[in-house]
């Protein structure tokens, strides 16, 4: 592969960033966006809102990609280094390649956004600069830092491979720290727009720190951080899946099968934490403004939660499907197919309840005026049952994984029988416990349910997972291995399931991003800066879906181009020079 020296790589990155920033400042200066009495300018044909919507969402997707993938890559590199596993190091390097290219695209999209916003929304941006201006300059500084570290991290890979690997991993950690700083800064802007603080009612700055440290800031940052890990890993899995389906040699197939599996498991592990943090975010929104909370959860957006449940359940099903098919490649895996039936039923029931709408009435007003709830659906469609259903479906998914891990082994420890029985008891007790809490949630006040019971349910869920993994660790110590997993022996449809996870998750990100932004209704900054543009209304769910689809397809179009570019460079013979 073509080697570029580290200094050259860094200067390339810095020059790129400077050029992009230079272009945007030049254009902004040329247009003099703030020298106008008009509060808005219109973007041709599709309108300002849709334009900014699509660009911002694409920018966000790539940002999630370049923030999530490094977490994943550095973790891989670290484990590979400690375990001296060459395969992991190769994966990590592959991903470092992905996000280094991703940075450039993110920066280009960011530039477009940077030019668009002040020109299209001058009054609103003027307000944002007045309140949070200094954070923007900090952002630029962090951006430069990040660019330099990333370039250094990537281009010094082979140099530092033999000596100074520890330092290199540390560099990777710095990449992630800088990434987290970027995330915190951008989240503070979005947090301020949705749950503003630190300003007077007339929009005058009272305390800048309060304007940054809003209700939403930390939960949103945390939610985004975890979602980024999910997203980065999902992209990795999709990449592996694509390479798997197109490669012909058994070695390549085995390698990409293994890579897809690893990425998919990291993806789903982080995914399990998301509902909990999402819950926290919801609680913060309620704390900021009860009305906004209800509007988001039960008002205009109620049906989008049904949509969200459909998508989340689909992701679980794709992953389960992948794991169930994976049993085929495990010698001894056929012993476990009888449990798959059970897991299937639990996942299906969980999903069905999860997506059941609470009220079938269309609008808030209708729901209030008629006030009809279907006796069965009405009872299924509430928080109590949905939490339970979500956790049951996720727990079933976890057990699919737990079964897969041990499918090719047989315990040899003397207490094998007892151990298996304890495991089964833990499983049954946890299902019963979670279902019982679910039932109990119906008869206690909402406050208690939200703050106590849900926490216990989530706690139980994580407790069971940890307990099962710990028991397995000892139970399968020196276990008899029936046969090594036959990596690469997978039908193509399992790989499409992985790509399905990635597409669905991307679409879900667009949807939830829209809901977060839409929660402000007709405000730019909720309760402070009113949106008086012709686009101040919330569009229909169908319209939002179309935009989400366009964004998703555009995103994958660009990602495909990146993948294609990487695959092409691989064809340059080893040791070739540029």
């Amino acid at each position: 592969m073509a080697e570029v020296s580290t200094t050259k790589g860094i200067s390339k990155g810095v020059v790129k960033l400077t050029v992009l920033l230079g272009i945007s400042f030049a254009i902004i200066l040329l247009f003099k966006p703030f020298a106008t009495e008009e509060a808005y300018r219109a973007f041709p044909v599709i309108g300002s809102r849709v334009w900014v919507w699509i660009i911002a969402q694409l920018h966000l997707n790539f940002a999630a990609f370049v923030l999530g993938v490094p977490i994943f890559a550095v973790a891989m590199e670290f484990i590979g280094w400690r375990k001296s596993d060459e395969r992991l190091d190769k994966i990590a390097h592959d991903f470092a390649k992905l996000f280094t290219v991703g940075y450039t695209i993110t920066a280009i999209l960011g530039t477009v956004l940077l030019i668009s916003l002040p020109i299209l929304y001058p009054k609103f941006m003027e307000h944002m600069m007045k309140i949070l201006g200094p954070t923007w300059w900090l952002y630029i500084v962090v951006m430069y830092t990040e660019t330099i570290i990333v370039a250094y991290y990537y281009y010094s890979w082979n140099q530092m491979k033999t000596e100074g690997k520890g330092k290199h991993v540390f560099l990777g950690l710095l990449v992630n720290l800088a990434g987290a700083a970027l995330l915190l800064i951008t989240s503070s802007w979005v947090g301020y727009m949705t749950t503003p603080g630190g300003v007077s009612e007339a929009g005058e700055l009272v305390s800048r720190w309060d304007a940054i440290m809003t209700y939403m800031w930390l939960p949103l940052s945390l939610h985004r951080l975890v979602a980024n890990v999910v997203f980065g890993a999902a992209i990795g899995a999709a990449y592996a899946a694509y390479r798997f389906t197109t490669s012909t040699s058994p070695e390549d197939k085995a390698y990409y099968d293994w890579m897809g599996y690893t990425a998919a498991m990291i993806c789903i592990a982080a995914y399990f934490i998301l509902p909990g943090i999402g819950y926290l975010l919801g609680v913060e929104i309620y704390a900021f403004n009860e009305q906004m909370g209800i509007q988001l959860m039960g008002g205009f957006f109620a049906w989008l939660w049904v949509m969200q449940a459909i998508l989340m359940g689909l992701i679980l099903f794709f992953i389960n499907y992948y794991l169930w098919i994976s049993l085929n490649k495990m010698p001894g895996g056929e012993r476990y197919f009888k449990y798959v039936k059970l897991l299937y039923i639990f996942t299906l029931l969980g999903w069905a309840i999860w997506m059941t709408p609470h009220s079938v009435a269309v609008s808030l007003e209708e729901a209030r005026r008629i006030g009809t709830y279907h006796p069965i659906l009405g009872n299924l469609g509430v928080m109590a049952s949905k939490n339970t259903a979500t956790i049951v479906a996720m727990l079933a998914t976890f057990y699919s994984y737990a079964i897969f891990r041990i499918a090719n082994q047989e315990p040899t420890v003397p207490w094998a029988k007892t151990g298996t029985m304890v495991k089964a008891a833990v499983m049954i007790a946890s299902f019963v416990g979670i279902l019982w809490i679910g039932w109990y949630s119906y008869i206690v006040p909402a406050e208690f349910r939200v703050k106590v019971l849900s926490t216990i349910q989530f706690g139980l869920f994580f407790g069971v997972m940890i307990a099962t993994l710990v028991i397995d660790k000892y139970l399968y110590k020196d276990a008899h291995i029936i046969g090594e997993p036959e990596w690469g022996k997978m039908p193509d449809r399992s790989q499409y399931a992985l790509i399905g996870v990635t597409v669905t998750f991307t679409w879900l990100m667009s949807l939830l991003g829209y809901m977060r932004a839409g929660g402000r209704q007709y405000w730019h900054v909720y309760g402070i800066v009113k949106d008086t543009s012709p686009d101040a209304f919330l569009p229909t769910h169908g319209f939002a879906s179309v935009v989400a689809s366009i964004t998703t397809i555009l995103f994958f179009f660009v990602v495909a181009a990146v993948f294609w570019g990487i695959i092409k460079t691989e064809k340059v013979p080893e040791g070739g020079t540029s």
Partner: protein
Amino acid sequence: MKKGGFGKLVVLIIGLSVFYTYVGLYFLPQSESLPPVVIEIREGIEQDELLKIGEDILFGKGQCMVCHPNKPEPGMRSPAISGIGAVIAERVKNMDVNEEEFIFQALVDTKAYIPEGFAPIMPPSQKLLTEGELIAVSAFLQSKGSDVTISYPESLPTLRKLLGSKEKKAVVASVEIKKDISQEELLKIGKDMYDDKGGCIECHPAALDPDVEFPILPVLLSEVQKHADEKGSDVESFLFESLVNPGAYVAEGMDDIMPATQDELSPEEIIAVSAYIQSKGGKVTVSLDSLPKLTKEIEKAGGQ
């Protein structure tokens, strides 16, 4: 490289996106959420028209229906609109305000008249609505079961007075309490705070009142003493905690509706009130020396 993999990938990505779009377009209900229109209320507007505007605001711009159901239903967050005028007419019978003042007060200073069994969650309406709109909503509420006496612009002075006093209330200068104040003076200030600025007396009257179910002033101290013993903390700290973080301990059968005292009173004033409460049935131990203890409790309450 195997051929055809890329084509399948494209089909999969576009196919899934199209399917989700289909769900969004044809499965979900399609409606737009429009921003509220600016409603113009002229002087001398017909009463019918005013009520109609009030109803529209209730269902639309005011978003009252988010919490207030039309008809009473189990588990409602806030009182039902239907018949609310009659409820108000009933409530003002025992008060020295008229219906008009009551409704305005409830909209503007929303914590003022929270009915039993409901939490103080309502945001102040004057942030969202103009004066005219407030009057329209009030008139509509009154029409739900009572004779409408509110009209535009006749009711404006009453409303403005309330809006003004609400603002004034917030900037009432804290009473200055000198370091070397005598206990008698402190108790006197405490009583003023209790009866007037703090408004404690509205819920905790000085003598038994059949309409009030909250502990009355003379028993407050014994309640505090009892719970402090149960908790094993000293009376002073518990008293302060109850005042600055009322949600921390709520007596059985009571709702967590007491507002935090430090929003209305300065720390010195809270000391005075505490001393006053202690003076009703016990030895007064609270003095300005207790300030650090109080500050600690306030910080604790703020951190939650």
